[in-house]
């Protein structure tokens, strides 16, 4: 087998990943060899690195397939990578103000986040079951450590262990599925698998492999019934870590799932669509009902994110370009909402810790009107009430489902969103209709910026980002078809 790398120029499509990898090594060196308290400066450089890589990827968009077809750089990848880089960078920004009490005042944290981000970028660009697994594991191993990074906290250690055990299980299932697929098609490369499948030679073993592969991926996006780890890990991990878990990795896993089912299994669309529809309905419905009883804010957000994965999968169920457009837009809006929401949570600091229970938010509208208004906007946006961005996210995915004539799925979806309104409204109710109980400290500037920017984008979506984001997502999805 000859190499397709005849010159350094041929490496240009993978330049962002190379830059990020070298940057991560440099950060590790800096953390080890610099004297004194290094975590703040390492975090700062890491944020700068993530931003720089994002700018690089956007300014020099070079498409290409490398390394004998295991790595593909295309428009879809760039869109998702941009979201991932934004998510990771902002997750680091959110961790700055409370690094000390969350056990994140270690330079390793930023390095691990950068390495996880690198893994996610490889996942997004994976064009082969092997590179897919490499990216996924690089991401996952970094995340297992990050979940348990607050060593003295038993809850964080428990979360890390739980995440590790279940994550390892899901990796095993994914590998088993991949091996079955290889066994029955003789290929590991995603587009080659599609070619074999389109010849019409399909056996049952292949379908079993597909189910295992999708189950492994469903773990990573925390779709029901593979969601059990999510509430515990969200609750146990330090809040800035939860913010990271809820944002970039979800985008990466979703992007991976889209690429696998759209490219590789396009010829057996009917088979995977059934699975995705089941995951979608189960996630939407279970999350809507399970979240009602939650009292802890982070558990509530965990169920909310499960539900939102279900909604995003509605778009994927359609199996059309419109559906992928919808999922791409959905993930961008979901990312914005999640990061702004965690900015709010991290800004709610009392003398002895952070607001953890929903009841802690009582009367927030009177004590912290700005944070309360942002939270209320987020809640209404998460419900999907227009004119907020959450509505448009749902619009695109449900539109794709209707166009694919999946009416029952669409009706179940909108009814689930009506049920989910109940628990989101409870937060608004507590903040606006009840009397204050707790006094909170002033919010750090960077959190105010994240909250303000997030709320602004969600409110003015129709007039500001709606059109360009939609066009970009459409182009990105187009590169898969």
């Amino acid at each position, binding site marked *: 087998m000859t190499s397709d790398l005849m010159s350094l120029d041929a490496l240009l499509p993978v330049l962002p990943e190379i830059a990020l990898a070298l940057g991560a090594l440099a950060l590790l060196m800096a953390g080890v060899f610099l004297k004194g308290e290094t975590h703040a400066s390492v975090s700062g450089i890491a944020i700068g690195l993530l931003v720089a890589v994002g700018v690089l990827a956007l300014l020099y968009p070079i498409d290409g397939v490398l390394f004998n077809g295991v790595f593909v750089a295309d428009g879809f990848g760039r869109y998702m990578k941009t979201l991932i880089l934004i998510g990771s960078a902002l997750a680091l920004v959110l961790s700055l103000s409370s690094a000390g009490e969350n056990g994140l005042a270690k330079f390793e944290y930023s390095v691990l986040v950068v390495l996880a981000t690198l893994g996610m970028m490889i996942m997004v660009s994976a064009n082969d079951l092997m590179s897919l697994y490499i990216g996924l594991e690089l991401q996952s191993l970094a995340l297992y450590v990050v979940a348990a990074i607050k060593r003295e906290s038993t809850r964080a250690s428990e979360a890390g262990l739980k995440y590790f055990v279940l994550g390892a299980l899901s990796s095993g299932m994914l590998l088993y599925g991949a091996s079955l697929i290889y066994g029955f098609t003789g290929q590991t490369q995603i587009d080659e698998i599609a070619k074999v499948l389109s010849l019409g030679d399909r056996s049952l073993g292949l379908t079993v492999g597909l189910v295992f592969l999708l189950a492994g991926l469903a773990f990573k996006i925390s779709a029901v019934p593979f969601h059990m780890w999510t509430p515990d890990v969200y609750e146990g991990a330090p809040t800035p870590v939860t913010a990271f878990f809820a944002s970039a990795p979800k985008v990466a896993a979703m992007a991976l799932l889209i690429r696998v089912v759209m490219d590789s299994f396009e010829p057996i669309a009917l088979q995977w669509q059934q699975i995705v529809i089941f995951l979608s309905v189960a996630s939407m419905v279970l999350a809507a009902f399970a979240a009602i009883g939650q009292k802890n804010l982070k558990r509530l957000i965990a169920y909310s994110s499960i539900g939102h994965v279900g909604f995003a999968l509605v778009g994927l169920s359609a199996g059309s370009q*419109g559906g992928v*457009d919808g999922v791409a837009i959905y993930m961008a809006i979901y990312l914005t909402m999640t990061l702004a929401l965690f900015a709010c949570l991290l800004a709610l600091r009392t003398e002895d810790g952070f607001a953890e229970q929903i009841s802690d938010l009582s009367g927030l*509208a*009177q004590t912290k*009107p700005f944070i309360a208004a942002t939270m*209320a906007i987020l809640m*209404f946006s998460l*419900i999907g*009430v*227009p*004119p907020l961005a959450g*509505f*448009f996210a749902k*619009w*695109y995915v*449900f*539109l794709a489902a*209707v*166009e694919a004539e999946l*009416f029952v799925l*669409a*009706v179940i979806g*909108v*009814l689930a*969103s*009506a049920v989910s*309104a*109940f628990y989101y*409204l409870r937060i*608004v*109710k507590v903040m*606006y*209709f009840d009397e204050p109980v707790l006094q909170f400290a002033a919010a750090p500037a960077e959190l105010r910026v994240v909250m303000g920017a997030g709320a602004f984008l969600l409110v003015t979506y*129709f007039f500001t980002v*709606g*059109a360009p984001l*939609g*066009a970009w997502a*459409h182009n990105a999805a187009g590169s898969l078809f």
Partner: protein
Amino acid sequence: MIETSILTAITFLPLIGALAIVTVPGDSARFDATMRWIALVTTLTVFAATLVLWAMFDPADPDFQFVVNFEWLPGGIGYRMGVDGISILLVVLTALLLPICVVASWQSITVRVREYMIAFLILETLMIGAFATLDLALFFVFFEGSLIPMFLIIGIWGGKRRVQASYKFFFYTFTGSVFMLIAIMAIYWQAGTLDIAKLLTFEFTPEAQFWLWLAFFASFAVKLPMWPFHRWLPEAHVEAPTAGSVILAAVLLKFGGYGFLRFSLPMFPDASALFTNFVFALSVVAIIATSLVALVQEDMKKLIAYSSVAHMGFVTMGIFSGTKQGVDGALFQMLSHGLVSGALFLSVGVIYDRMHTREISAYGGLADRMPRYATAFVIFSLANIGLPGTSGFIGEFLTLIAAFSVNTWVAAGAALGVILSAAYALWLVWRLVFGALDKDNLKSILDLSRREMAVLVPLIVLIIFFGFYPAPILDAIGPAVDALVHDYAGTIGLAAEMAVDSAATAVH
């Protein structure tokens, strides 16, 4: 230039007022007055602009006017605005009521004035937008968006059971309208556009019409509300602050009637014809049953709320009669009910501000101490009954004629409802303002203040003026209604003829 920008300006002007209120510094009571004045000036400006709009409107033209139309978001959502005879007066009504609401809340709202005024201004943008947009998705955006400010208005400034009321309001409406959302997507999938002007001429297959009609009905029947989907309304009305009740009754309920007129009837004519008797039955039940329920209410606001449901029965009856008088009457009834129910809730607010109770039995003989108030209340009640010479008469009379021409039994049932409305309204007047003033705490009650006069007198003038001279309204809505009824009759007639033809062919 002004032709194309005036609707956009009217719709979004209140947001500028809201932004101005955000920037008022400080949170002490001293700044509350500034915020109230900003809100008042903004809403008055919007009202003036809608009057200009009405003046520039060409009533002879049945098409949409002041049209702006361009594609905006991918996925079919465009920015399209425009009004015709059906929508323009609802825009004016909305803009008229907002300054009245601001003035009515001047003294009764003393906590969180900033949020209150912002909520009302945002609500105004959303309400006007819902009537003025020509994009189906954007209509949904405005229609559904109005839930947010209203939810907060009921929940923050409402009465004792406000949380339950606000939840009920949100869930009934939200659940109803998600079906409409799916239907809107299905329309886009079928017709390839969300431009209402184009959709009005698009012909959906009868089977598609059936499902789409039901989905739209789910939303509008809850919003209007029709019996038996009205359960949220009495609670929301009772618990909302006065101005909230006014907006709810006068404008938000009209979304339902407007939706039936704008979408159900012209876009799904075959399905509408199919469901006519179903709607008639619900309308008559609403008129009679809720009037009876209104008779036994002990809470003034609840009584007026149930009377609203009854009056909306006339609206649906008129719309689905599919005749010129019926649709004219329904639209007139919607506008008139906007003025009358708004005025009644404001009147209740006046005495509630003084006594802090809405129990009817807590009052009596108010005419002694409050002659001006008593006069106003009697006029509003008579208008609510539909006495000739008030605006309430025109709408009820036209819809009754229409119903009579289509189905005598429906007309008979509705006429019974008119008698019942006289019973509950006059009994309320008797218990409230007449009789002996024997309750001690009422002996020192004060008559209308100048501010309250400023709120109520314009409504009295309008109610009586349009009662005697309905021409300005009927002229404005006439051509658009003509076109709508003509198209509807054309489609239905054609369908009927075709049915006859095919039956004849089958026989041969």
